[in-house]
């Protein structure tokens, strides 16, 4: 009896074998062409892009975290980089017949190989199955339109069915303006899905990466049981320029950085990219059933 009480009610099953499809999201492998050198925007240090990729795209000199694309993120995080992707057949519509929107989608698709600004699916971390969503800021600045909202909501629904934890890496400029109010409503849709997960006792870990702002920051990204961020990530509701115009004063340089928000009590922890897999694995394991007391 006592043991029952102390045990967590949730049990994470292992991932069925047939699900181990070794695909990573349909993304080109690196952001920087191989063999080229990259200059750190923060300290100016020069790195070989191949070295940089090996170093999880963290500057060897100043720890600056370069943007990671969805594929790199998934590979760095999941066991053996194995990933089963969900819903990669969803495509944006042009509900408002917004000037130039379809062209912009097509051109981002060509540039990135992505079909939308988020990739969702499942895999394991340290042996624990998880549902994972990774936003990619190269596609429409990671903005949330109908497809992003729908993919995230569906991923959460699957996590509820399967009793898996959900981990979402956000990287977003906010709402997808070209989808107007439909884009706004994705904030409610994703949050409502998290309400269901919450009620079911499911675990949601939000990891905010650079940048997480606007409608994404003001919906699912802030609703984690754990709200984490990467070092130096810009996180906030309103844009810096708009705030400066409104209050007519200059903002401190570190305003809206992960470190600033940590100090203000808005985050649980800022996690270095090299520690990410360990910390997430640890949290997920703390939430899973272990041999009892």
């Amino acid at each position, binding site marked *: 009896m006592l043991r029952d009480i102390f045990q967590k009610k949730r049990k994470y099953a292992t991932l069925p074998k047939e699900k181990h499809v070794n695909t990573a999201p349909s993304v080109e492998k690196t952001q920087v062409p191989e063999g080229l050198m990259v200059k750190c925007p923060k300290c100016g240090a020069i790195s070989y892009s191949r070295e940089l990729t090996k170093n999880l795209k963290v500057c060897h000199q100043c720890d600056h975290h370069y943007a990671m694309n969805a594929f790199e993120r998934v590979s760095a995080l999941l066991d053996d980089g194995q990933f089963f992707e969900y819903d990669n057949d969803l495509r944006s519509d042009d509900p408002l017949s917004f*000037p130039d929107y379809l062209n912009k989608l097509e051109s981002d698709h060509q540039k990135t190989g992505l079909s939308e600004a988020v990739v969702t699916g499942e895999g394991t971390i340290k042996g624990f199955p998880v549902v994972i969503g990774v936003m990619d800021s190269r596609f429409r600045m990671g903005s949330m339109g109908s497809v992003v909202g729908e993919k995230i909501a569906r991923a959460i629904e699957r996590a509820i069915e399967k009793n898996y934890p959900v981990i979402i890496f956000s990287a977003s400029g906010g709402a997808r303006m070209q989808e*107007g109010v439909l884009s706004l*409503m994705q904030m409610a849709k994703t949050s409502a899905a998290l*309400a269901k997960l919450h009620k079911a006792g499911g675990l949601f870990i939000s990891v905010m990466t650079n940048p997480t702002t606007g409608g994404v920051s*003001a919906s699912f990204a802030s609703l984690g049981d754990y709200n984490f961020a990467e070092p130096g990530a810009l996180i906030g*509701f309103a844009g810096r320029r708009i705030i400066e115009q*409104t209050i007519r004063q200059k903002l401190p340089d570190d305003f809206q950085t992960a470190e600033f928000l940590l100090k203000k009590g808005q985050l649980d922890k800022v996690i270095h990219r090299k520690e990410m897999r360990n910390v997430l694995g640890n949290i997920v394991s703390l939430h899973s059933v272990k041999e009892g007391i």
Partner: protein
Amino acid sequence: MAGELPFEKPLVELQSKIEELRKFTEEKQIDLSDEIVKLECKAKELAEEIYGNLTPWQRVQMARHPERPTTLDLIKDLCTDFVELHGDRLFGDDSAIVGGVARFNGIPVTVIGHQKGKDTKENIARNFGMPHPEGYRKALRLMQQADKFNRPIICFINTQGAYPGMAAEERGQSEAIARNLREMASFGVPIISIVIGEGGSGGALALGVGNRILMMENSIYSVISPEGAAALLWKDSGQAQRAAESLKITAQDLNELGIIDEIIAEPLGGAHRNYALAVQEMRKSIEKNLTELRNLNSDELVEDRYDKFKAMGKYNLLSEIS
């Protein structure tokens, strides 16, 4: 006509001409009644033409009209026994959001809304209806109270947006809005959200996760202000008119997009011209929707809200496109 808008000018001129003729008739004892009747007829036609064909930008101006009924005006006229309640119990009392308990047609309800001012002084006191996190947290507290005591919730939406300020960010504007979205989705009581003026972005949606979403005829609801969109898209906030058209933000647009459930008719020329008529229409609409929702039990209400928002969005399957 006080507070007239630019596009109302021809009507205003005609009406003042009619007024002149009336005075003339009285003072000079000359009968101009034929002429007056003719002009009145013309004025009526002109009014119908103007108000019947408002452009999106003209709707924006109507939605922002300083004399439009505010949340407190509507609560006063729709409800009895209103007791305003204050504070978020954490930081302070945000006057940009008001709320409390009241009766609607005798039924105890919780009413909450953004509160704009009617003049500069009041607007400064109300921060132009742009809430800080404590405003959203007050709203959440009142909604949780409603949920506990099984009272329906009526939300009035009227804000340009959540306040973009330093303190607001430091105190977690994003988290406050996000939490409201999630919690509203989970309450087991009927929620009706009504856009009464401007529905600006996440700051509006934080009161908007209702079983029913209604919009007044001359209100707008948008992911970004037309000015903001113009600045982003065309680097020119002067293009707001164009943005208002592209973004599809009027009650009529949202009705067509299937986002809202109902448009609440306004008196000719806008709600600010006749509060009583505006309130009468709103009362009818709330009555009807509340009656329907009160037939659902708490699980059904939560499910109804989930299905409603889950269905929002437009996308295609790859197989359907190619």
